[in-house]
């Protein structure tokens, strides 16, 4: 098992290294890298000094080495917006997105597992088909449309929730709901098919001999076993949510890095963009590694290879 | 005397054994494959190769077909070494040497109709001047193996086992090869159908002057078809000779065991070999 984990770790690190290289390459290809390091109003001496400092007159591999060194020491360049170090600016905005992600993921899990189980429990009935139809609909729905519908319903028509901003927990509800809903659709479909698979297994047939009500069987035998494989989806779900965060934060003016990324792209604030890209890839790789690790720990079948 | 159709001399091919990661472990069990085999097959005759599963017969078949390279020894077709022939390209070899395999389903593309697969064989070799001509040849071949013309458009799963095997034979023979290797061609068929396919092969041998290598674990089947017989065990030939001789007076214990396991006489369909072509073991 250790060998598998080490391999995964190596692959993850390789992916990060390649992402960093990718960013480096397109930075150089995109044009004068100085535009990303200095604010627009830099003086000639500053330009010359930075050019020398960053070694931009050096051969490419030297530049690459110094680039990586700078990254490792936390120097990601300066944001165009206010001239502050890009890393600090981005890290400032990260908590807001993390709150959004956590809430959204929780909602998605609760909603997704709940409806998925319901659909499996009432398999073949109207409830099942309605839930599955809803899941497909939510998957087909563009994120931004869902945001607009939410705003129209809750903010404009009902006036319950504010339509934008990020100051109060009330502001959190709609963005988290939108992000959670799309993930919930995927989770529901997955959980349903996983539950149906579990139902066909022999150990459930044995358990159902006991005089237990069906819902009990579901809650304590089927659900835990069916939900476990969700860990394999974590990477996919997280990626989707991060991608969706860019849109959702933009529409609801939630002050996270998703929205910051979009505005940075529009303003060609390359330092910020590069920071966010690298940060996201590190997060994704870590999340995938953790999920793999958790899965082997939690699933006793995989833990003891000898029995296999 | 002209060169025999097929000659194997000291051929050896042992399957690589799985090795453990630990440096002190040694591979377990015996190596399987062909230890040392020498055979000759005269043109126009059938060599029957009997042996139980695991004795190396299929490995030998793949060596003869050129799918594997022998680790030692030589294989020659009509006097030319197989490696030389392969050097000229698989296509050239395909015109001389073909195989009918045990699993008829396996040798056909499940999503293509039988007829087009035959036509494709001709197509690969640029035989026939035009598509209608190739189609006619394919149809003729189907009839020759005893299938009706309707089979042309059928998919493999729509045919019975015996019909599929006939189709596989048609495909093998459409290029009119000189040597046909049959690796357990009837083992997967019902007993009643086996006789039909065997008789078909005998007829085709006569019509096309084929040299055949007929491999089976069933001594009755092999005995029925062959001019000369070779008995294989654990990668070696333990006895070989004219079929009648081997069957009537087996010299090796193993051969005796094989014949004894079969109740009744083994019927023979091919004539006795002419003396100067007899192979001495």
């Amino acid at each position, binding site marked *: 098992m250790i060998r598998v984990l080490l391999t995964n770790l190596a692959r993850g690190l390789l992916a990060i290294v390649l992402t960093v290289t990718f960013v480096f390459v397109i930075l150089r290809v995109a044009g004068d890298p100085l535009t990303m390091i200095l604010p627009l109003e830099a003086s000639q001496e500053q330009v010359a000094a930075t050019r020398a400092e960053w070694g931009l007159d050096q051969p490419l591999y030297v530049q690459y080495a110094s680039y990586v060194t700078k990254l490792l020491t936390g120097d990601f360049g300066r944001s165009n917006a206010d001239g502050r170090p890009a890393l600090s600016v981005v890290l400032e905005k990260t908590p807001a997105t993390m709150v959004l992600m956590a809430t959204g993921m929780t909602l998605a899990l609760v909603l997704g597992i709940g409806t998925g189980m319901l659909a499996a429990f009432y398999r073949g009935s109207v409830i099942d088909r309605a839930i599955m139809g809803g899941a497909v609909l939510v998957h087909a729905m563009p994120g931004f449309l869902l945001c607009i519908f939410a705003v129209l319903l809750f903010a404009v028509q009902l006036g319950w929730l504010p339509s934008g901003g990020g100051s109060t927990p009330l502001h959190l509800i709609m963005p988290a709901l939108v992000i959670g809903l799309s993930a919930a659709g995927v989770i529901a479909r997955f959980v349903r098919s996983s539950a149906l698979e579990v139902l066909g297994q022999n150990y459930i047939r044995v358990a159902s001999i006991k005089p237990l009500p069906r819902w009990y069987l579901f809650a304590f035998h089927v659900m835990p076993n069916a939900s476990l494989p969700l860990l394999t989806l974590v990477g996919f779900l997280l990626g989707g949510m*991060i991608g969706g965060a860019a849109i959702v934060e933009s529409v609801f003016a939630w002050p996270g890095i998703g929205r910051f990324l979009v505005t940075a792209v*529009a303003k*060609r604030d*390359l330092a910020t*963009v590069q920071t966010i890209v690298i940060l996201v890839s590190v997060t994704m790789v870590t999340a995938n590694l953790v999920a793999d690790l958790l899965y082997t720990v939690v699933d006793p079948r995989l833990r003891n290879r000898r029995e296999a | 005397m002209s060169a025999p159709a097929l000659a194997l001399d000291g051929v050896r091919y042992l399957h690589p054994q799985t090795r453990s990661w630990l440096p002190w472990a040694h591979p377990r069990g015996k190596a399987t494959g062909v230890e040392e085999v020498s055979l000759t097959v005269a043109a126009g005759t059938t060599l029957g190769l009997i042996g139980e599963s695991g004795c190396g017969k299929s490995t030998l078949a793949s060596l003869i077909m050129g799918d594997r390279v022998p680790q030692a020894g030589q294989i020659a077709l009509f006097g030319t070494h197989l490696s030389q022939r392969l050097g000229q390209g698989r*296509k050239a070899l395909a015109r001389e040497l073909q195989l009918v395999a045990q699993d008829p389903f396996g040798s056909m593309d499940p*999503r293509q109709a039988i007829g087009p697969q035959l036509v494709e064989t001709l197509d690969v070799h640029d035989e026939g001047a035009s598509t209608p001509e190739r189609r006619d040849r394919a149809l003729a071949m189907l009839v020759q193996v005893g299938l009706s013309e309707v089979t042309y458009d059928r998919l493999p799963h729509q045919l019975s086992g015996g019909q599929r095997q006939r189709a596989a034979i048609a495909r093998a023979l459409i290029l009119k090869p000189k040597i046909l290797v049959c690796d357990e061609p009837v083992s997967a068929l019902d007993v009643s159908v086996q006789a039909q396919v065997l008789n078909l092969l005998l007829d085709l041998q006569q019509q096309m002057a084929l040299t055949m290598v007929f491999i089976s674990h069933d001594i009755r089947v092999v005995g029925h078809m062959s001019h000369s017989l070779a008995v294989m065990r654990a990668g070696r030939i333990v006895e070989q000779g004219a079929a009648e001789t081997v069957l009537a007076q087996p010299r090796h214990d193993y051969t005796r065991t094989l014949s004894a396991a079969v109740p009744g006489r083994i019927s023979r369909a091919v004539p006795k070999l002419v003396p100067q072509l007899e192979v001495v073991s």
Partner: protein
Amino acid sequence: MTLATAAPPWRRPGWLARQGWPAIAAMAVIALYIVVALTAPWLAPYDFAAIDLVARNAPPVGFGGTWAHPMGTDDLGRDVLSRTMISVRTSLAVALVASLVSLIIGVGLGLLSARRRGFADGAIRVAVDVNAALPFMILALSVLAFFGNNMVLFVCLLGLYGWERYTRLVRAVAMAEYQKGYVAALRRIGASERRIAFGHVLRNVLPVIIVNWTVSLPEVILLESSLSFLGLGIQPPNASLGNMVGLGRDSVVTAWWIATMPGITILILTFAVSVLGDWLRDYTDPSLSQG
């Protein structure tokens, strides 16, 4: 000699009616969209850029508007219905091209990695890892940031979406196919590797490819419209469903139809393709089929 050949099942009469109403409805909707996409410049009642300040912000029919503008008008008086039709054309064209590019790349790599183990396989595995490390949206945004906006770049970028799913699927199926007896038989006949790959293996892999394409096409449509919505994809004056919603976003409180009409249009399209994809997956499932 003529032979009577059995017709493939979908040419036999009554086949369509037996497929179940969701699939039929989905096919009808998609057919409608294709017709609109092909004929939009002639079918649309107004020119999509025609400004009519008198009829500004007219609501759609049923909400106080008239049949002159069934879907209402935007703040420059442009007819929303006509603009939506033209946008369908743009969005469908972009999505089709991009999804086919991704298909070709993915299938090509999949076939390659099924044949050649070792280096190519490893390289492809690494590429898949990198892909998993970066959500496509983030990647797209960063490329657009670094290279700015132009149509060709945008379509190429979209063409890079989802190739790894094709590669994974094709590799798995192709590897299984290559193990099958008919490949060995074909080699023995002397068929070239190219003939085997394109003439036989590919044909057996095709159903899986098509099903995956029906799954990824809606995702590409959503991706394009999301990026255009943010103002980073297809730019005005070109009309795409996404950028229409983006432009209508500010007036969503006062003139909700400007954003919602194109939005719902996207939704119906992607929903229909998803339903069709599900049906297709069941239809081509060998464990359920004939023979």
